[in-house]
């Protein structure tokens, strides 16, 4: 029963947290209402009579405006940064990405009327799917869309492709298969290629090149879209400063040249980058390098006015949408807010026509379309500010009036008199129209960063209440089990009742069903009930105790003391939470957390010293001067030496682990850790070999140390399947990983045959590891007990030989932790009096560490899996992680043992400092495994470990990438129960025997068997530990939530705070899930141990 209560309480608290988080997210993450309306040819924004001179009108296959081109080729070179496309003839020593696209330069120079290069400003987030959406619909993507890059679902809004298809144009597509997902069944013909495998530089591009020329020659198309991915993948894999980039860009250059040669008169060629890349080759954020892409427009017909040689013009990415639409003679997509690029609307016959007429016309159509969209949008969503809308409306009507005026003037006076006044009026009109369009874009951009403050507030309140709940439960965990009815059952019932009531009310009153609101009411009801019950009980208790103890002074003092005890750890936790509110602290969070962690641990040890727990006897006892000289007045315990050594290890581990930090782009002069570069990127073979050996040996050391630990506590003696797996399975996995890394690091300039073989190996080995790890989990779940019983009655020879060949006798004799069968027997003798006669003892190897051995097995399996998901050089970071965790546990265990010399029940409480430090260590290693809470820093490569060909679903890659990103959160959440177990493991014989001298013969180490002896206290301790861990994480989450809510208009919100918050939230979810699983696992081990004892008893009684 107590086990179930523990797990259920934890579960319920997690759910409460999720409810608060979900509510906050729904208020914070921006959503834009998508309008489903579509533009159509029939609803032309203006009668064709205005569209210029009579007679010319609109050609039959044009809508809205006479088309200039009947065909268009749109080439998207993914991640084509602006400076990739620039060409500087003076640059003698170009970098790999410079001066490679000379065809652009030459055509711009030689035919300025035909070609022009633009800076193409992308809106953040600069992920490919967002950009494709923006470039086809003409709207601004919102923040929430970032995450859906995995599950690219079809675009519902009106878009260019939709319009093309609607107007019976044949759209042929080739390249990145994201398009297929966004526009299913829209293309006349398509050649999609898998896009997600970043390592693959050539498949997509070669596939396009195979088809593109033949397609262009054959006339089965009107619009051809080709999306090249090579440059982007090259950036992700090698960065822009790699020879491979030069090669890739040269290939693009060649392709462009031959395509330009093939071009016909009525075809427009558009070459664009959907976004740029940072100096490390990533993208997703809003730094200058990522936002600044290139746009190159070319046609064999003269298209541009010859302008004085300016450097280049800047256009917004969504401006391409109306431009392309009008040039091709199709309606502008309904929700477009882009502005036509007026440079492309020069009137053809230049001499006799008004040069501004075409431009004004295009802008006029554009303005009318935008106005129509604004009207229907503000009708549907009401989130655009009314005053701004009014202002825009005025601007619009003046522009329209002026336009109509001018047109009528032109129509009246048949012969055009291009007098100065007329020209200035036209110019002014253009300016007004452009202002209208530009300001509309701005208004939209601003208000689509809109929040729902009510939801945010409710979310924060719920989160705060849940944190409070966790704290209260953890403080009263020892009595919780008896009160579970009031504190768990009733709140749940109340919550569900409240939720159901609201649900029915919603049903009856016909309000739209909102699952989130129901969740809110459930959480709210349970909170109210919990707190009401809790404080009522507290009051009752107080009344009782007041009657019992007259002098509440002592009581108060004790209370103060216990408060002071947790003051420092919680104060440091508070500091960490405050740090979330400052962008500079968030940027340098890795250092901040490790600093706080070091302070916390140092403080704990110093406090131990201050309290005199390190001295072996009391100071104030009078002592003889002689002793003072001989043995030193303070004879320090051996443990203090131990403590100092482990403190040093701990600090040094933190120091070294800071070498693995990734860089944020905000820090100017920061070199990302060299360890983040996978081996395959190192060109120097000697260096490569060295680092290969380094990573292999650190992996080997990791597994070897764990094995030593098992040996030390005698957990490798039995012949169970688990032990077998630990002995053979672990080394085999290590071997597999080494092979995998070797193959992975091999240079790519090998023969094709070998390439095939390598590809196979790259799939098979990770597969083997996956299978082995899963088998390991299953085996541990099936029988987690690693205890071996040596019966002293029988001679050693009968039992031992079966394992002795692999175990040295020295180990056998030294590393035995004899458990104390006697102790158990004593307890049993009450039930089985007849057993008393048999006084033989049995030694149970490893019984003292049953729980932790099982947990460590799981941890090791997880670590091996996670190491495989990282790049090979991170194995050193994981070794450091283990060392740091181990030294912290040792410090913790020793400290607990020293400060609890006589207090047996004190073992069952995990103090705040330990929990806080554990959570901090998890955060610190989040950074020290090469992660940062930013989107470009996510290591997408993890999705391809063992799945080179890519995935068919989105769940598996998301899982793999998630495990990679939150590796340290997972490991520390799973390792969390060790905080409770370790003081038992480190139990000191000396102090025990000193304190319980009266019971002689009872001085054996019982270690973790104490936990089994007191199941009630065990589950209470687990409950408290879990609640405290959740509290520490929850408070951090609450802090980041508050930070992001308060600073939501901060300049850095989308760059720093929002990603940090999302990572914190995801980290919390991952941690809580793994925490729950671990606790269930510990319960499973407990059940198995109890069963094992029962069987042993049965055997004994026979």
């Amino acid at each position: 029963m107590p086990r179930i209560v523990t797990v259920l309480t934890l579960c319920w608290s997690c759910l409460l947290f999720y409810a608060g988080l979900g509510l906050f997210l729904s208020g914070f993450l921006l959503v834009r209402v998508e309008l489903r309306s579509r533009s159509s040819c029939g609803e032309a924004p203006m009668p064709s009579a205005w569209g210029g001179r009579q007679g010319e009108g609109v050609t039959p296959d044009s809508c809205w405006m006479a088309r200039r081109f009947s065909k268009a080729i749109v080439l998207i070179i993914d991640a084509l940064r602006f400076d990739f496309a620039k060409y500087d003839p003076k640059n003698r020593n170009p970098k790999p990405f410079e001066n490679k696209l000379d065809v652009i330069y030459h055509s711009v120079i030689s035919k300025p009327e035909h070609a022009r290069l633009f800076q193409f400003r992308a809106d953040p987030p600069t992920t490919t799917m967002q950009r494709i959406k923006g470039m086809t619909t003409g709207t601004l993507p919102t923040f929430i869309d970032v995450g859906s890059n995995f599950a690219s679902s079809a675009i519902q809004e009106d878009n260019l492709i939709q319009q093309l298809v609607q107007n019976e144009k044949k759209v042929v597509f080739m390249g990145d298969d994201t398009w297929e997902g966004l526009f299913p069944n829209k293309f006349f013909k398509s050649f999609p290629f898998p896009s997600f495998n970043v390592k693959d530089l050539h498949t997509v591009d070669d596939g396009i090149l195979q088809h593109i020329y033949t397609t262009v020659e054959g006339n089965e198309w009107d619009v051809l879209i080709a999306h090249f991915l090579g440059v982007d993948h090259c950036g992700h894999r090698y960065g822009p400063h790699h020879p491979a980039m030069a090669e890739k860009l040269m290939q693009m250059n060649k392709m462009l040249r031959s395509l330009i040669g093939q071009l016909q008169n009525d075809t427009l060629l558009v070459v664009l980058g959907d976004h740029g890349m940072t100096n490390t080759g990533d993208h997703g954020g809003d730094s200058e390098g990522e936002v600044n892409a290139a746009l190159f427009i070319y046609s064999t017909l003269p298209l541009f006015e010859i302008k004085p040689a300016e450097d280049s013009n800047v256009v917004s990415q969504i401006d391409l949408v109306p431009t392309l639409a009008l040039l091709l003679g199709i309606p502008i997509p309904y929700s477009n807010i882009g502005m036509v690029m007026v440079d492309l609307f020069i009137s053809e016959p230049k001499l006799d026509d008004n040069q501004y007429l075409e431009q004004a016309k295009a802008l006029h159509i554009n303005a009318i379309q935008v106005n129509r969209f604004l009207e229907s949008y503000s009708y549907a969503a009401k989130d655009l500010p009314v005053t701004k809308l009014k202002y825009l409306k005025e601007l619009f009507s003046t522009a329209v009036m002026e336009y109509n005026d001018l047109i009528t003037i032109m129509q009246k006076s048949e012969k055009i008199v291009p007098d100065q006044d007329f020209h200035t009026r036209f110019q002014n009109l253009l300016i007004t129209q452009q202002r209208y369009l530009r300001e509309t874009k701005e208004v939209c951009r601003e208000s689509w960063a809109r929040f729902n403050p009510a939801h945010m507030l409710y979310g924060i309140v719920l989160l705060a209440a849940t944190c409070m709940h966790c704290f209260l439960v953890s403080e009263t965990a020892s009595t919780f089990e008896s009160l579970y009815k009031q504190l768990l059952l009733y709140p749940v019932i109340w919550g569900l009742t409240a939720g159901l009531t609201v649900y029915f009310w919603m049903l009856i009153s016909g309000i739209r069903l909102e699952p989130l609101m129901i969740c809110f009411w459930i959480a709210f009801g349970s909170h109210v009930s919990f707190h009401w019950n809790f404080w009522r009980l507290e009051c009752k208790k107080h009344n009782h105790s007041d009657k019992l103890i007259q002098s509440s002074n002592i009581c108060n003092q004790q209370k103060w003391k216990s408060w002071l005890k947790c003051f420092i750890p919680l104060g440091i936790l508070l500091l960490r939470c405050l740090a979330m509110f400052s962008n500079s602290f968030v940027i340098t969070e890795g250092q901040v957390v490790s600093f706080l962690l070091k302070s916390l641990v140092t403080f704990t040890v110093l406090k131990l010293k201050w309290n005199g727990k390190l001295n072996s006897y009391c100071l104030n006892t009078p002592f003889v001067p002689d002793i003072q000289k001989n043995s030193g007045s303070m004879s320090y315990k051996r443990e203090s030496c131990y403590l100092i050594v482990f403190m040093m290890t701990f600090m040094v581990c933190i120091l070294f682990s800071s070498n693995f930090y990734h860089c944020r782009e905000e820090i100017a002069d920061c070199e990302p850790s060299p360890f983040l570069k996978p081996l395959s990127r190192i060109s120097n073979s000697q260096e490569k070999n060295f680092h290969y050996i380094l990573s292999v040996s650190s992996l080997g050391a990791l597994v070897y140390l764990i094995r030593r630990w098992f040996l030390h506590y005698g957990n490798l003696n039995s012949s169970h399947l688990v032990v077998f797996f630990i002995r053979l399975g672990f080394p085999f996995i290590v071997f597999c990983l080494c092979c995998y890394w070797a193959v992975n690091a091999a240079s790519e300039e090998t023969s094709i045959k070998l390439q095939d073989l390598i590809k196979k190996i790259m799939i098979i080995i990770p597969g083997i590891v996956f299978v082995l790890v899963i088998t390991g989990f299953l085996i541990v779940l099936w029988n987690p007990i690693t205890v071996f019983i040596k019966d002293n009655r029988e001679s050693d020879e009968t039992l031992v030989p079966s394992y002795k060949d692999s175990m040295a006798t020295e180990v056998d004799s030294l590393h035995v932790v004899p458990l104390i069968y006697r102790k158990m027997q004593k307890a049993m003798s009450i039930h089985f009096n007849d057993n008393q006669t048999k006084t033989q003892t049995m030694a149970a190897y490893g019984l003292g560490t049953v729980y932790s051995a099982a947990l460590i097995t799981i941890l090791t399996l997880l670590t091996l899996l996670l190491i495989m998901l990282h790049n090979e050089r991170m194995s050193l970071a994981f070794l450091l992680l283990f060392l740091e965790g181990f030294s912290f546990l040792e410090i913790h265990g020793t400290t607990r043992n020293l400060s609890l010399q006589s207090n047996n029940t004190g073992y069952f409480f995990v103090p705040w400092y330990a929990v806080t430090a554990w959570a901090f260590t998890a955060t610190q290693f989040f950074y020290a495994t090469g992660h940062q809470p930013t989107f470009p820093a996510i290591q997408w490569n993890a999705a391809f470990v063992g799945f080179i060909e890519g995935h068919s679903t989105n769940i598996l890659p998301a899982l793999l990438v998630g495990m990679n990103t939150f590796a340290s959160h997972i490991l520390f959440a799973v390792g969390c129960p060790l905080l409770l177990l370790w003081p038992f493991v480190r139990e000191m014989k000396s102090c025990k025997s000193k304190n319980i001298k009266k019971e002689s013969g009872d001085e054996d180490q019982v270690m973790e068997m104490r936990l089994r002896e007191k199941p009630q206290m065990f589950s209470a301790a687990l409950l408290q530990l879990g609640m405290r861990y959740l509290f520490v994480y929850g408070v951090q989450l609450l802090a980041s939530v508050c930070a992001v809510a308060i600073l939501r208009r901060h300049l850095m919100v989308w760059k720093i705070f929002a990603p940090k918050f999302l990572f914190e939230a995801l980290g919390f979810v991952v941690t809580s899930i793994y925490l729950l699983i671990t606790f269930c696992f510990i319960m499973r081990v407990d059940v198995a141990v109890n069963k094992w004892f029962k069987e042993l008893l049965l055997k004994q009684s026979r």
Partner: protein
Amino acid sequence: MRDIELRGMFSAHIILVLSIVFSTLVPSLFLDEFSVTGTHLLWLCVCSATVSAVTIVLYLLLETNPTSSKKNSPSSKVTKIFRSCLLFFISCVIFHGILVLYGAPLLVSFRETFMFAVLLSTFTTLRCLCMLGPNVQAWIRVFSKNGAMSIWDTSLQITTICSLFGAWLGAIPIPLDWDRPWQVWPISCTLGATLGFTISLVIAPLWIYWHKKHLTYKCR
């Protein structure tokens, strides 16, 4: 007896405080470009030199160490001084090591870090040396809950804890992007340590005065 002692301590502490103020203000009279943040290294040297000189002089005048009252032979005095110097140097090195472990740059501003370690040693180790002699055991004894055996020990506890805490607090504003001159390593930390030390010098006698009743020194 107590009150006299307390008064002596108070005046000694005030002299120390004045010496710190002196070391910040006076050099600017002689040197044109002297400022605490601008020529930080120089200030560090001046400050630690002044404080250590004043501490030693005060110690010689006051004879605060009760155990050293008995006459020592000159040779033992020499060894004692030698041991003290050695211990001081070791403590500087240890402080430097701790600073590096706490995230100070290892090579970049080595001199600054080492001078910071020296400053910390003057605030803590030197005072220990003066009051308790070169006896590490005694130092370790003093820094525990019931370890203080005189009001001097108590003041030692307070000043040491406060200066270290000040240095710790000083590290916190370093990552902020305010771009102030005092955010450069180790200026904020040294300032924090100095401030902590100064404040504790004032506070220690007052604290002892107020807690007179609770402070009982058993082994006097």
